[in-house]
């Protein structure tokens, strides 16, 4: 520790001048403002300039130094101070360093180095050992780097969390103090995302979360690289409008896996003037409950059509008598009352296909169904069921043939389908490709101060394949509508456009 401190003193002398500049001249207080979630005042504002150097230092100390000290404390034991290029000195600073300009300068200077400089490397914090499928994402990172002429090994630093919270922080400490990364990608698990979200503004490190945004205010340093259910729901509503389907019934699985989508869809549909007639959930492991849900939306559950059923029964009985045929009560059934234009079923193609059969069994001859990416499989067509004709679904993946060459997966006869063992790879690759686009862009901006890298994030998307983030720092991921059609014994899908 003593040697660390000596080394730190030498470093102090070297950086003294720079530190003074940071505090007294050039963006003296930029650090303080940038520390807020959103800059309330522009850099070099009057408010900032009104502060005394000590006050400003105190603020910086409270906002950043304490955070960095905390992060350093949470590092892994393997991370030694000598491997931090002097950054470890941060643990020696106290609020008292702000009192004297001699001590204040080195501290501020060190802070500036930590927050501004970056190595052009991208830190990746994922539970790689626990979730091997994440390798498909990291492979896409590497592919993306190579596609941009970068050496993936020199660009990405992969650290495994083993699904342990403390490992996330340890990894972050290592990436900040040891590797001085440009940006972080991580947060595939909600808890890990939350940890990264907490650290990112404190250390002004652009962080790309592989998950959906929570209901919290956006930050300049937090980006959401994962496509959102809201975007997909928007595409579904657009499709409804496009096909003229105004009255909608929703059948959703009770295991909540589609709740986000359904919630978003319901809000957007209502906003678009669509009429949601039913929203019934079912247990997709129980046929009887699925059948009951289907009966409900077609008014076949017998609750309000008893008289009609009795009449049908009598008519059939009389007919049998008149024609001298055997009366079979099993043949008497209410006709389905199809009031909806389409039924949303945000579940797997398997469940959708079973629903289609249940609908047909209940006497529904034609009714468009619609859903989302879980429908995307040759299984939605094979074996072909004519009931599926005119149904449609929305997806985040366009034609597989349009995937970037570096991650392109060989398609079969159809550009819209992949062999089943390649589907997951294609999805993860696309996520990896898109999620790494932002960080790779920043990594190539080494001359820019790290804390200002957010200004480099593209905000406008000119093509579906371009990377862009919206005002909430959520990636603008293109969506696609696919329509199902078929004749005879085979069906097919066609892309209706993004």
């Amino acid at each position: 520790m003593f040697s660390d401190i000596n080394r730190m003193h030498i470093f102090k002398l070297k950086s003294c001048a720079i530190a003074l500049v940071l505090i007294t001249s050039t963006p003296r207080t930029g650090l303080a403002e940038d520390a807020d979630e959103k800059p309330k005042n522009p850099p070099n504002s009057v408010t900032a300039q009104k502060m005394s150097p000590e006050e400003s230092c105190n603020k910086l100390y409270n906002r950043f130094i304490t955070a960095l000290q905390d992060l350093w404390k949470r590092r892994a034991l393997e991370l030694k101070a000598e491997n931090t290029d002097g950054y470890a000195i941060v643990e020696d600073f106290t609020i008292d360093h702000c009192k004297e300009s001699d001590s204040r300068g080195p501290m501020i200077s060190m802070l500036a180095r930590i927050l501004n400089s970056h190595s052009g490397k991208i830190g990746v914090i994922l539970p790689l050992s626990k979730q091997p499928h994440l390798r498909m994402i990291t492979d896409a990172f590497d592919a993306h780097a190579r596609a941009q002429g970068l050496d993936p090994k020199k660009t990405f630093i992969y650290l495994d969390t083993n699904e342990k919270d403390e490992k996330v922080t340890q990894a972050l400490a290592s990436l900040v103090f040891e590797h001085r990364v440009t940006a972080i990608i991580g947060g595939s698990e909600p808890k890990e995302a939350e940890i990264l979200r907490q650290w990112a503004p404190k250390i002004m490190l652009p962080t790309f979360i592989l998950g959906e945004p929570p209901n919290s205010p956006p930050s300049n340093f937090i980006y959401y690289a994962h496509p959102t259910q809201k975007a997909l729901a928007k595409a579904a509503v657009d499709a409804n409008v496009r096909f003229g389907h105004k009255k909608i019934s929703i059948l959703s699985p009770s295991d909540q896996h589609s709740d986000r989508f359904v919630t978003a869809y319901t809000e957007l549909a209502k906003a678009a003037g669509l009429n949601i007639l039913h929203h019934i959930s079912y247990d997709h492991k129980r046929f009887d409950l699925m059948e009951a849900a289907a009966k409900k939306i077609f008014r076949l559950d017998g609750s309000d059509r008893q008289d009609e059923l009795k009449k049908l029964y009598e008519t059939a009985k009389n007919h049998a008598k008149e024609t001298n045929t055997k009366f079979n009560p099993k043949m008497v059934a209410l006709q389905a009352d199809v009031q909806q234009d389409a039924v949303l079923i945000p579940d797997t193609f398997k469940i959708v296909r079973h629903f289609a059969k249940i609908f047909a069994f209940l006497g529904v001859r034609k009714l468009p169904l619609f859903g989302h990416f879980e429908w995307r499989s040759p299984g939605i067509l094979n074996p072909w069921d004519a009931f599926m004709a005119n149904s449609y679904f929305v997806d985040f993946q366009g034609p597989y043939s349009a995937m970037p060459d570096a991650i392109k997966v060989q398609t079969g006869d159809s550009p819209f389908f992949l062999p089943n063992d390649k589907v997951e790879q294609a999805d993860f690759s696309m996520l990896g490709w898109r999620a790494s686009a932002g960080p790779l862009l920043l990594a190539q901006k080494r001359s820019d101060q790290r804390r200002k890298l957010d200004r480099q994030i593209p905000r406008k998307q000119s093509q579906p394949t371009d990377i862009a983030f919206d005002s909430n720092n959520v990636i603008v991921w293109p969506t696609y509508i696919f329509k199902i059609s078929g004749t005879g014994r085979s069906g097919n899908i066609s892309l209706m456009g993004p």
Partner: protein
Amino acid sequence: MEKNSPFKDSRPPMLVSDVVKPSGSRHWKFLKLLLLASTAIGVTALLVIMAWLNSIGVFSIDDGQIRKLQEFSYHDNSIIYDRHGAKIGEFFEKYHIFVPYNDIPQHFIDAIVAIEDKNFFEHSGVDFLAIARASLSRLKTGRFTQGASTITQQLIRHQYLNNNKTIERKVLEIALALKAEKHLSKEKILELYVNNMFLGNGAYGLGAASKRYFAKNARDLTLAESSLIAGLFQSPSRYNPSRYPNRAKKRQLQVIAAMSRLQKISIQQAETIKKEPLQYKPYTFINSLMAPWFIDYVHDFMSRLPDPSLKNAIRSGLRIHTTIDSSLQKIAEQSIQSHNPNLNDLSKRTGKVKDKDSGKLKHATVEASMLVTDPKTGDILAMVGGRNYKTSQFNRTVTAMRSPGSAFKPFVYTEALAKGFKWSDVILVSPVNIENYRPKNMKDDYLTETTMLRAFYRSMNSPTIEIAAKLGLDSIIDRAKSLGIRSPIKNEFGSALGSSDVTMLDLARAYGTYAAGGILTELSPISKITTSDGKVIWEAQKVTERSKRVLNQQLSYLMIEGMRSVLSLGTGARSSDLASNAAGKTGTSNDSADNWFCGFTPDLVSIVWVGTDEHAPIMANISGASIALPIWDQFIRSSQSIKFPRPFDKPEGIVEAQVHPLYGHRIDRGTKMYFFGNKLPEETESALEKIENSGSRGYRNVFRH
């Protein structure tokens, strides 16, 4: 004499009229008139009698009639043989074995004469003394208490007349008897009599009775046996030893006593027989011993042959060589009989039907039947038409029209494979509604997926109907017909699940087509028919002439493998160890009214049915698999000593692969499925399995964060 004559000296000899003439002319006139009247009456009476005799045919008896009696030809029985030449039955109008006079034992002649007509060798056809005695008795008692008919009269009555006790018949009988005696020797008359009279148990004549009652030839009869048979001539039913042994013994002793009176036997002999218990062989008709339903079927089959000379098999003295295999027939019967306890138990759980006799409601009786054929030749090897021929002669293998249930499904799947479907094709199992027809699956296995093979071997209804709907009913019906179903098939989707009634013959033909690699061969119960001296007068068509290829070998093999899966993995899995050399399909109709197992090896087709004749439900949660299959299983296992098991021949152009039974893609340890050479399923994991394996993560979960 002359001295005492009152007229000798006074008058010349007179006419009769003179004698009766009164002394006065008035008297004479009266007498004359009386004489004339009497003469007229007598002549008239004579004329009337003559006319009456003429009217009843006494004067029209000619020599030809008697010759006809003499030339009476005996109908030889037609004998039925099994495929190995063993006698299994007979057809006859009268069961008869001719015994020439010289072969009739003397003690039998003595016995029959003693008891029936002790003066036979003395009278001239009619025993007038006996008639007088009988008439006197009649006058005394007002009824016939004594018989007066001679053996000749009895023969005449049996051959020409009826048993009505009228004067006319009696007079004619006497006239004919007198005439017969003039033309025939006593020995001939006795021979005719002994060979023609009905003696009970279906036997006509001494030869047949010897066989029936003692299982021996007439010439080998003992005195006691002869006396028993002789006693039967008066009333075979009254003295039937099987039914009335006491009466029979009594009658036997009457015969012995009569013989003793005539000194035909010694007192000692008579006493010996008196002390002996009655001995005879209980009679069981041969036709009911081995294959009674089959013999009925053979008779029916012959009556439908185009050659008119074969229609009357009963009287033809034919030798009918059938296809039945007595060993397999026994095994088939035992296979059913050994399940009697179970079948009896089920009979307590059937729907109730009206009893024909009492009119009361009772549980319908569970019946069972089995038909076994050789798929390559079409030979019927065994036929068990029911559980007990004595209680029910109804032949369920031939006549019963029953719903085959799922045993019809192979025809649907054959058509599917022919139309390009594969065993690995995936079907989503959900309820189906086709034209308001909504069949249910046996088990509630909806919301699952299955390959076509699994749907077949588990006998799932909704996938089958779905396939049927894609194929179209017409093509399925045509396919079933081409395979050998001759019963009409209803043009409704229920037929795809076996709602149209068929016979066991239909199913044996059709399943035999699979077993024979796609060749349909018409079934035949008879290989040839010959005369008694061996001349072939009818022969079944050669196998090649009554066979035709209706499926290509490869398609047939795919179905064989499908039906092997039924045994190895499906509804027939309780007999899974038989699957290496056997295949088949279960079938159960609504309410378990019909329960089938239709199975085959390369050499045998065996169709088993269990149900009630009244189509009553069996309320015991049973199926073809639980009740018909065990019978089939026992038969096939037992028959393996006769038909050594061997695998089915696999033709060229068939490939096999291990396939996921639910999702239809190839996997290392899947279900073995067979395909046409160029139609192997995909190697990659199916999307459905992907969903199954994704578990809680879900399908394409990456986009659902």
